[in-house]
């Protein structure tokens, strides 16, 4: 089953065509990579999928439900979690609170039941705390749970973003350059983490990344964008040997 389907997505910013009728289908349980040179439209694509932009043309579907005009917070509540290329943590909240905010979209206790401390609100709060701690355990940040998020090391911030996205219990997780700025041992850990959470939480993962080693290693399928157009799609082996991809992105060995 296609978890995510994009049909002819075009996005224009003034005269600039950031995406030019891009169509994609992401099957459940896959790790789907999107690669391409800088400015190819990868992050724009993520912003469309998560509802930050409404595409100029085309439609998108999440589990057969049309979400072209759905607002960002509603798309999140449907089960689309994401991380950001330029880290967007809640800097002056504790690490634990960052993850707790992440579960906002799947909790439901009302404003007044929280204000009055009714049992339902208390139960939910307890559950949220327990689950958040488990997620911090998973990404190895449980010791620093009381620190401010902006005091964490860079790699830790990236992993906190993943924990926060998982708190939403998403079925589709979008990772925007998760390995950016990481050293090679951190990248190895990250690969393990991504494979691990995919199995544990039964996720479909969509991933933008520049690190070819990581992409080729963990992705089942890869789509290549260049100047807003999809120029290739296939498994890592196919993409690596595609002439257009080599020309525009991977580069030719001389």
């Amino acid at each position, binding site marked *: 089953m296609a978890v995510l389907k994009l049909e002819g997505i075009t996005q224009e910013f003034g005269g600039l065509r950031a995406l030019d009728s891009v169509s994609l289908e992401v099957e459940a349980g896959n790790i789907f990579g999107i690669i391409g040179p800088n400015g190819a439209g990868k992050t724009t694509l993520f912003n469309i999928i998560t509802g*930050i932009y409404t595409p100029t043309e085309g439609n998108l579907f999440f589990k057969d439900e049309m979400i072209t005009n759905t607002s960002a917070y509603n798309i999140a*509540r449907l089960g689309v979690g994401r991380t950001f290329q330029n880290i967007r943590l809640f*800097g*002056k909240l504790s690490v634990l609170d960052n993850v707790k*905010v992440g*579960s*906002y*979209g799947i909790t439901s206790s009302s404003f007044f039941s*929280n204000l009055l401390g009714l049992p339902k609100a208390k139960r939910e709060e307890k559950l949220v705390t327990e689950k958040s701690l488990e997620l911090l355990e998973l990404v190895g940040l449980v010791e620093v749970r009381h620190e401010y998020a902006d005091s964490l090391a860079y790699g830790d911030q990236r992993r906190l973003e993943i924990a*926060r996205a998982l708190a939403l219990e998403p079925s589709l997780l979008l990772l925007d350059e998760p390995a950016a700025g990481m050293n090679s041992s951190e990248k190895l850990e990250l690969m393990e983490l991504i494979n691990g959470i995919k199995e544990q939480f039964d996720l479909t993962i969509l991933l933008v990344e520049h690190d070819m080693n990581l992409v080729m290693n963990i992705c089942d399928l890869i789509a290549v964008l260049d100047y807003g157009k999809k120029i290739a799609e296939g498994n890592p082996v196919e993409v690596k040997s595609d002439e257009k991809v080599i020309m525009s992105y991977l580069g030719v060995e001389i």
Partner: protein
Amino acid sequence: MEGFLLQFIDAYYLRILVIIGINIILALGLNLITGVTGQLSMGHAGFMSIGAYTAAILTLQFGLSFGIALLGGAVMAGLFGFLIGIPTLRLEGDYLAMVTIGFGEIIRVFFLNFELGGKATGLYGMTKYTTFTTVWILVIIIVLLNAKLLKSRHGRALYAIRENEIAAEAAGVNTTLMKVLAFTIGAFLAGLAGGLYAHYMGYIAPKDFAFMKSIEILNMVVLGGMGSIPGSILGAFILTIAPEMLRIVDEYRLLFYGALLVILMIFRPNGLLGNVRIYDLKKRFRKKEV
């Protein structure tokens, strides 16, 4: 209660304590909007005046009981907060500040020309129902509910909006709705404070709620520490007491007041209690022990 307290302190101090209480309610309301949610609002005195006039008219003209008039004033102010919040909270930062300044001025000019509100003369002759006890019981209730709110999922969502709106949205927070909610509650509290003020002074006029009053409330929040409940309380304390203490320097009073603000902001840019957590204090204490 007042009689009991007056055995220990004189009426002047009791009066200051009442004003402090009213200012705490104002500061906590604005803290929710500006300190917690990060929406710079500079027209808080406008909401206060709506509450003050509504409550005063309800007791003077309609002979309603004080409690109902207070609630009426607060609800009216909250309603205005809601109505103004919907279109304006799409704006950010400086733009929102401009719009809220404009709103504060519109309200002031409206009351200057409002027949039922006595125009520039204002309203007088309100029975002084507001006592030390009413004010401080309300302060305690509001502080407790406010603390409860900020610890809940909704409170965390408000802080998240301040820290990063796009990330909050990605976590499923309806940011527009939450901002309007914060604005409405903040305006409601300002209206409540206005009703208390009107029935403490027994006299209100448009000049009581001018732009400088909004700035004074904002100062309390910033000085105390954005987003911190103890901070807002401390800010309200200091900025209510400071002008009184500075009476000794007479006409240089405002100069000292200004200098005090500048110095505090240089040494504590996050406010007195901004980003101060019990956890950090404990940690520092433990380190010293070792």
